[in-house]
């Protein structure tokens, strides 16, 4: 069992605090930076970005539109404007490239809340286990896409979607949305580990599907160096994605974390004292492997 009191100590000792929190810090900068961009307008009159994550206009020229919410609107019978379609194409292209769930770990404001809950769980040693299957989110996704077809009154999910609610709340006014945020925090803290983001959230499920063939992936190219400290499993919000890549050498499995559940958050890269993990392409191979393959093919030719 991993000792929670010393979690991350090995990495700090081996790499220093900064290097062992590199991607965590970068993610916080990304998440808060995006919020800051949207808040610069209403707070300081600095209109760099208008709107919110559902649809925005940057510098009065670049439209960005959330494909998930536009899909729901389209299902309820809307013909979007050209700007919205361009916005969706740009967003989709981006996440197709870097991985859909990059949205979850680098953009979504709820991630700040659920990460805090997960951190507190570890600190307090709360061990309640999820009664939900991780596939619940796909059922939720299906539900949110069927509802606009069945119920008049449109994009039902957006009435309660905590993701858009929290972001819109911060930028436009919170109202009672903090109750929802608090609910998710407590749910993740007490009821289920990674309960919201990892099991239920249909927004994540949508982006999961978007990024199922994405190019940017975390890999465990240095998996031979793994000392089985298990800390990556502890900090990972989707720990089921690690094992096939990290322990699959005997089965000949690729060292690339291929599951689109992976949020590309990079916590495993940070926490690993042995630098097993790194970002890379979908078909990343170790230099040694490339060399060996080269030799084999040369040998075959000879």
């Amino acid at each position, binding site marked *: 069992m991993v000792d929670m009191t010393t979690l991350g100590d090995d990495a700090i000792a081996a790499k220093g605090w900064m290097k062992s929190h590199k991607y965590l810090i970068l993610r916080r900068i990304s998440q808060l930076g995006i919020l800051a961009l949207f808040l610069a307008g209403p707070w300081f009159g600095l209109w760099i970005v208008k*709107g919110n994550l559902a*649809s925005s206009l940057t510098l009065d020229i670049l439209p960005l539109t959330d494909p998930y919410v536009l899909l729901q609107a389209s299902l309820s019978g809307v013909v*979007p404007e050209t700007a919205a379609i361009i916005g969706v194409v740009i967003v989709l292209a981006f996440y197709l490239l870097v991985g859909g769930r990059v949205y979850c770990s680098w953009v979504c404001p709820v991630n700040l809340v659920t990460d805090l809950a997960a951190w507190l769980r570890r600190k307090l040693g709360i061990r309640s286990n999820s009664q939900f299957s991780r596939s619940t989110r796909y059922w*939720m996704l299906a539900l949110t896409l069927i509802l606009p077809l069945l119920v008049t009154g449109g*994009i039902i999910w957006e009435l309660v979607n905590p993701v858009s609610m929290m972001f819109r709340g911060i*930028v*436009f*006014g919170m109202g009672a949305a903090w109750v*929802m945020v608090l609910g998710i925090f407590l749910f993740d803290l007490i009821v289920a580990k990674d309960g919201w983001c990892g099991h239920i959230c249909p927004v994540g499920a949508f982006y999961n599907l978007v990024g199922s063939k994405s190019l940017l992936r975390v890999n465990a190219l240095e998996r031979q160096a793994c000392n089985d400290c298990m800390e990556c499993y502890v900090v990972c919000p989707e720990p089921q994605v690690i094992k096939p890549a990290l322990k699959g050498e005997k089965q000949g499995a690729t060292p690339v974390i291929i599951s689109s559940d992976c949020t590309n958050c990079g916590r495993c890269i940070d926490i690993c004292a042995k630098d097993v993990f790194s970002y890379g392409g979908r078909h990343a191979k170790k230099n040694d492997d490339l060399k060996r393959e080269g030799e084999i093919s040369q040998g075959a030719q000879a």
Partner: protein
Amino acid sequence: MSDSKDKNELNRRQFLGNMLKTACGVGLVGLGLGAYSKRASTMPANYIRPPGALPEEDFLGACIRCGLCVRDCPYDILFLGEVGDEVATGTPYFIARSGPCEMCVDIPCVVACPTNALDHDLKDIEESRMGLAVLIDQENCIAFHGLRCEVCFNVCPIRNRAITLDMQHNTRSGKHALFIPVVHSDACTGCGLCERACILEEAAIKVFPMHLAKGELGKHYRLGWQEKEKAGEALVTPDTKHQYNLPDGVRYDLQGEGLIIDGEAEETPFSSNPLDTLNSGFMDK
């Protein structure tokens, strides 16, 4: 061998059971959401949607709650519904009494909308129908007390068409006129400038969403005189001249002041000018 098979069976059963559990759970969530959506799509009567907004049900399906209309409104009158507000979360509205639509000619809020929830076919702000002004309190509107106000009439951007002044007799004083503001739905955009301008503590003229402000004639209703005009003739019974059972030389015509006796006109001792009669009477005596 059989052991592992049993295990497989169990796993399959568990798998199916879990799936069923999840599906039922999510189905319940769906029912809840459906029911909630009915409640959440109601709106207070004084919340008015921006210009070009689709009919409410379509609007709720089309609006993606991005707030771009809010940002592009130069008068900052638009708000997004917050959780706990009595309006669908994240959808835009304004309140006429505190911040009415100023009717920008370029309609920037509509231009900003990425989904046509605010209809981009709306090019002329005077064609928009955000709601309808209704002079709802005729007991407190001071025009009905015979006082000159006409503020609503004067601030109306579609002056003398959306609100006109109807002059009526002031029965209280017996010698003055009442200048009664009358709203015309064929011109009123529902911008709410009149509601803001109303001088009362609580406005007597208010903008309401169309469905609250307007009645609707039964679909089967036909107004006889309109149908007659369209068809060029009466559709129900043909027009026949009414027959009166009168002696020869006598006619009846309401507009011609009733009974008319032909040839009698010459015999009358009275002139057509009543003054002549009066004057001649004095002369004769």
